[in-house]
């Protein structure tokens, strides 16, 4: 076996030690990681810039239509307010109690031998009902029955248009006074009638299917 002498042994060892220097290897690893992180950062920054440009576009589009949208929102709010107010006012108008038709009905009930001297009518709060007080004098052979006829007529006439009609005598008393009506002397009675009713119309009864069918036949 031949003998080999390595005279560069120490230099090679030193070179190997330099190559395996942990600080140097660490630095290389650090630079490598740094480069990777930098690339990742650059990629993120690029994406962010892209998003920023998208944001700018969207912002510009919004700024363009924002005044129109604000005006539209205001208009919608105004219109909704107008619609609601008009509806409420219409409800109020529709729920009013009309006195003229009522006075007409009362005038139809008053016969020539009855006289009204006082009339007081009040609409109860929130149109819950109407209270009327009618005071007058009835004349006839039987003045009380004349007053009763007036009460019956009121019930009949008012019942055609209103619901829950009640007409009651608060007072009905004979008077000593004798009056002349159409040349005839008649006894008189003083009355006060209290009339209550609901201004809502009487609901018509629903037609039964059987009767509808019979009419068709």
């Amino acid at each position, binding site marked *: 076996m031949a003998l080999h002498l390595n005279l560069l042994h120490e230099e090679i060892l030193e070179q190997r030690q330099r190559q395996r*220097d*942990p*600080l140097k*290897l*660490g*630095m290389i*690893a*650090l630079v490598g*990681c*740094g480069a990777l*992180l930098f690339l*990742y*950062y650059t990629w*993120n*920054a690029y994406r*962010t810039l892209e*998003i*920023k440009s*998208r*944001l700018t576009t*969207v*912002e510009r*589009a*919004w700024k363009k*239509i*924002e005044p*129109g*949208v604000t005006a*539209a*929102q205001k*208009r*919608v709010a105004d*219109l909704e*307010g*107008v*619609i*609601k*107010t*008009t*509806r*409420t*006012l219409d409800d*109020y*108008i529709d729920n009013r*109690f*009309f*006195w*003229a*038709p009522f*006075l*007409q009905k009362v*005038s139809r009930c008053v016969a020539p031998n009855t006289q*009204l*001297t*006082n*009339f*007081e*009518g*009040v*609409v109860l709060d929130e149109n819950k009902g109407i209270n009327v007080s009618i005071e007058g004098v009835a004349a006839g052979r039987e003045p009380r029955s004349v007053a009763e006829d007036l009460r019956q007529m009121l019930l009949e006439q008012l019942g055609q248009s209103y619901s829950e009609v009640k007409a009651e005598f608060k007072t009905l008393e004979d008077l000593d006074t004798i009056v002349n009506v159409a040349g005839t002397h008649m006894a008189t009675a003083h009355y006060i009638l209290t009339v209550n009713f609901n201004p809502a119309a009487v609901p018509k009864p629903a037609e039964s299917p059987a009767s509808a069918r019979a009419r068709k036949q």
Partner: protein
Amino acid sequence: MKLNKDQVKKLSLSAIGFVFLLYVYFTFFLGPLNRSRDGMLLKIKDFQSKLDASKEQMNKAVKLEQHAKTSTGRFAALKALNPEGAPIAWFPPRARAFFANQQVDKVVARLEGSIGFKQAELSGWMKYSWIIDLPQADYGTLGRAIAELENTDPLLSITKLSIHTLPDQPQFQHVDLAAVNIIEKK
């Protein structure tokens, strides 16, 4: 491989350097960038939803404008029923003129009070209560006048009506009306 003391020191230095690098990277570079990106994405989402909603809003306004034509017309007509100015200045003369046209003279109208509405829809309107005194009216004329009043002034409603005979003038009756008129706040 066995590391000597110097190498262990250098390795520790490298590890510390690496940790420091990561800390700086995430805290001062990537973190703010991500935060800003997330913020921008949120803004885009917000704007996008606003843009989508705005289209609906515009369409709604156009449709509502078409549907509300009747209401707006009616609202304008109701507003036009009452003239400008304080109601106390124009209502009594108007009531007097109205009843004079209906052959009922010597009418006096006076303000009893005014009150606002509870309903939010009518917050811009007020209820004015009036007492209208008709010292000389006959039943038939009064009925026609009231019918005309109720038909021509829909915002006015009569809440109380009293009719009394006049002993010295049997052809006439003394009438008191309590009426409520709805008037827009000026």
